């Protein structure tokens, strides 16, 4: 018998090892997960990619609180998956029908993949967002629809293509300049760094000129390929704001790629345009303050420099705030400042920096409920608990993030992220997250008309294609559905819809309008002249002269 077993093992040793390992893993996972969970309890699994210790700790704590206050029979198990493999993991779990009840969504996979997953594997939440959050009972929000309790109106949760809310977001994120308060004091004698551009550069110069114990110069700003773009959005890209004065042909408050192309082609813009020069100048002035070779470094390498007190400043977001605070604990104090920016009286940047940029804070950390969940109502209730005013405040205080719900308190470290800290001296704000956005100059006035014309035609056509027609065709009750779709038909006031429609045009013949352009001097376009007269009420009469424009040929 023993010989037989030995012979079998000798022949099938590899298979036996693999099988035994699998069984051991399965037993270990099951026993680990069931530990502390009484029989008959409802187990809710939650999958996410936030490996920060504070996130797991916060979710566990909130689950415990939910069990104590709301439903004693609910136990939560977290599946914290690294970012690098989250996409594959979530795909296999969803396709295999073994997905956790609650999944973090919206990133780590391309948007179109998430869209198909939402449609196939997630529960739509539209019907719940119009109802009050039951966990807000007894507060000002007791009768306020869930989506209206959000700072951003729950925009992040809305999936345009489905016209549905598919997730519950739980936190907001923004980016700022973090600094080592102690090192700054030691090297410059300052308690807080200046946020005016020239003064900030001087501080950086002072830092750079000093050497540490290892004989190396201190680095003013720890940077990497990851951090570089983060700074651009709130430092040099807003400088291109004045481009809208030259090329916002369709007057939507921004310069699109098409408008920029036409502006360059027609000579309205070039690289000598002051806002563009200013953008490059700012990068040129700032980058000597980074460590050498920063473009080849990753996020962690910059964080090391900062944590090892070799650099004074580092640009990052709220998601890193608690980690930085913990790494600095006992070593140095972390401060947060707004990005340095030139003032309107700056000799070079002044004309292109009329006000301080203000970011549009994004909402994230959003969770969807899998269709395969055995207890979707419990999963939803737990998410609503986390999205309640008190629940959201507590969750984010533990993690160190900004709450997504109105009327909540923010962690003291993150107070610099509040919008009132973005104002400049005059109280004005320049919303300039994206380059080339925002304004219409005093002089730009009328612009070549083809863009308006084209967009008018295309929008008119697209308007009728998306919504009304779709429901008319695909609704189970065509006439009723058509009427319903008419209500849903959101044509021109919806920038994201337009973008989606534009993208769709490339793939779908529906909505494609064949357009070719030819240059047509003297036709259609006008450029404003100073008004000739003003009537008694101050109304003026315009005189226009033709300019070279592009017109559309059928």
């Amino acid at each position: 018998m023993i010989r037989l077993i030995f012979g079998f093992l000798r022949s099938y040793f590899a298979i036996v090892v693999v099988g035994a390992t699998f069984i051991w893993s399965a037993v270990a996972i099951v026993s680990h997960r069931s530990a502390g969970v009484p029989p008959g309890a409802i187990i809710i699994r939650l999958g996410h990619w936030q490996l920060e210790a504070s996130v797991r700790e916060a979710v566990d704590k909130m689950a415990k609180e939910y069990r104590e206050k709301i439903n004693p029979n609910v136990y939560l198990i977290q599946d914290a998956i690294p970012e690098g493999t989250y996409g594959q993991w979530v795909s296999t779990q969803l396709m295999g029908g073994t997905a956790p009840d609650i999944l973090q969504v919206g990133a780590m996979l391309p948007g179109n993949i998430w869209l198909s997953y939402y449609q196939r594997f997630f529960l739509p939440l539209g019907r719940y967002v119009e109802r009050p959050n039951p966990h807000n009972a007894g507060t000002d929000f007791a009768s306020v629809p869930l989506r209206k309790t959000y700072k951003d109106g729950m925009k992040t949760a809305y999936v345009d293509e489905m016209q549905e809310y598919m997730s519950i977001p739980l936190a907001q994120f923004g980016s700022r300049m973090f600094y080592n308060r102690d090192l700054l004091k030691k090297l410059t004698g300052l308690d807080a760094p200046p946020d005016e551009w020239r003064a900030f550069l001087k501080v950086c110069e002072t830092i750079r000129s000093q050497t540490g114990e290892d004989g190396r110069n201190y680095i003013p700003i720890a940077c990497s390929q990851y951090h570089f773009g983060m700074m651009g959005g709130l430092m040099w890209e807003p400088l291109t704001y004045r481009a809208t004065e030259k090329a916002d042909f369709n007057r939507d408050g921004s310069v699109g790629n098409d408008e920029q192309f036409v502006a360059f082609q027609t000579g309205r813009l070039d690289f000598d345009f002051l806002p563009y020069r200013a953008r490059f100048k700012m990068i040129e002035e700032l980058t000597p303050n980074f460590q050498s070779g920063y473009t080849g470094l990753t996020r962690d390498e910059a964080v090391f420099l900062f944590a090892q007190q070799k650099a004074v400043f580092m640009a990052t977001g709220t998601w890193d705030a608690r980690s930085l605070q913990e790494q600095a604990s006992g070593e140095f104090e972390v401060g947060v400042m707004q990005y340095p920016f030139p003032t309107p009286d700056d000799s070079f940047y002044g004309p292109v920096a009329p006000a301080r940029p203000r970011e549009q804070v994004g909402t994230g950390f959003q969770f969807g409920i899998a269709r395969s969940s055995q207890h979707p109502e419990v999963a939803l209730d737990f998410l609503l608990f986390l999205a309640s005013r008190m629940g959201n405040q507590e969750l984010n205080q533990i993690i160190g993030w900004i709450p997504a719900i109105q009327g909540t308190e923010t962690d003291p470290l993150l107070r610099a992220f509040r919008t009132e800290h973005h104002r400049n001296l005059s109280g004005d704000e320049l919303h300039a997250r994206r380059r080339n956005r925002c304004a219409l100059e005093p002089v730009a006035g009328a612009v070549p008309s083809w863009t308006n014309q084209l967009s008018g035609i295309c929008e008119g056509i697209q308007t009728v294609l998306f919504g009304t027609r779709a429901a008319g065709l695909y609704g189970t009750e065509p006439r009723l559905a058509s009427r319903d779709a008419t209500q849903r038909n959101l044509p021109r006031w919806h920038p994201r819809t337009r973008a989606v429609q534009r993208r769709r045009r490339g793939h779908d013949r529906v909505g494609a309008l064949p357009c070719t352009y030819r240059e047509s001097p003297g036709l259609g376009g006008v450029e404003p002249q100073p008004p000739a007269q003003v009537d008694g009420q101050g109304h003026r009469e315009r005189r226009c002269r033709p300019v070279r424009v592009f017109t559309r040929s059928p």
Partner: protein
Amino acid sequence: MRYLAATRIALFVGLLCAAVLTGCGRRANTTENPGATLADGWQNFRLAEYDLAKQDFSAALASTEKGPDEYLRAEFGLANVWNLRRPGEDPARAKKLYEQIIKEAPDHDLAAWSALALVRMQHVVPVGHDPDYPAVQAGYAALIKRYPNHLAAKEATIYQNAILIATLETNQLWQAVSNLTAYIENGATEFRAPAWSLLAVCYQSLGMQRERLNAEIKSFENVEIDPANPFNEYAWAYWNIATIAEFEVGDFDLARQYYKQLIKEYPADIRVFPSKEALARMDRVEDELRAGKQVTR
């Protein structure tokens, strides 16, 4: 002994493969209800699973008698798959199916949509090709005549006039103005905002800025809203109207009204700062003109 073991393993692996392959196959649609199969077909169509959609529509077609509503719906679904799928489209098959629907049930709701689809196939051509505009225009006209007041005919009206507007020729533009005005005056509730919007484009091409401004305002007033959509916002519309009023028409009062509305209703919008600049600019221009100064930029 070894030979026996190897045979057993081969047998085991074979059975395992068979089991796996069986499991991988698409679950047969056991339902006898063609309505459910059609619903599956549309669901797959929406998910861009065109092969599955084709299977579903074909199954529904095969399980239904020729003639009834569900048969036509299955035909229409299949026609849409062949027409709109990428890659793998087959316009000839799609055209045949659409024509079949019109022939089999000329008064059915889907006959009107099929007629529209046939004209759209002629109108929307690949980049680099020109549509046969006279044929397309004739197609839309025939559809509007054959199915007056049908939603498909109203959609066709918009396309028809968009073609006229795209020519930029004065006569055609006036024709579009006439058509669209008649459409609006007829009291149509569907596509009312797009009709006003197209009218605004007409007036812009004709250089009638005051009329353009009025049409833009009407278009805004008739915009259709999904109250559940968090992206509903009128900041863009306010900005659009205000800038036309300021720069094209010179109606500073109206421009002020819309700039102020934007600032008040959307204090966090990206256009707030430039709206404040615009208000200051208009005040400055008026002051300078009243003082008899030559206004320069």
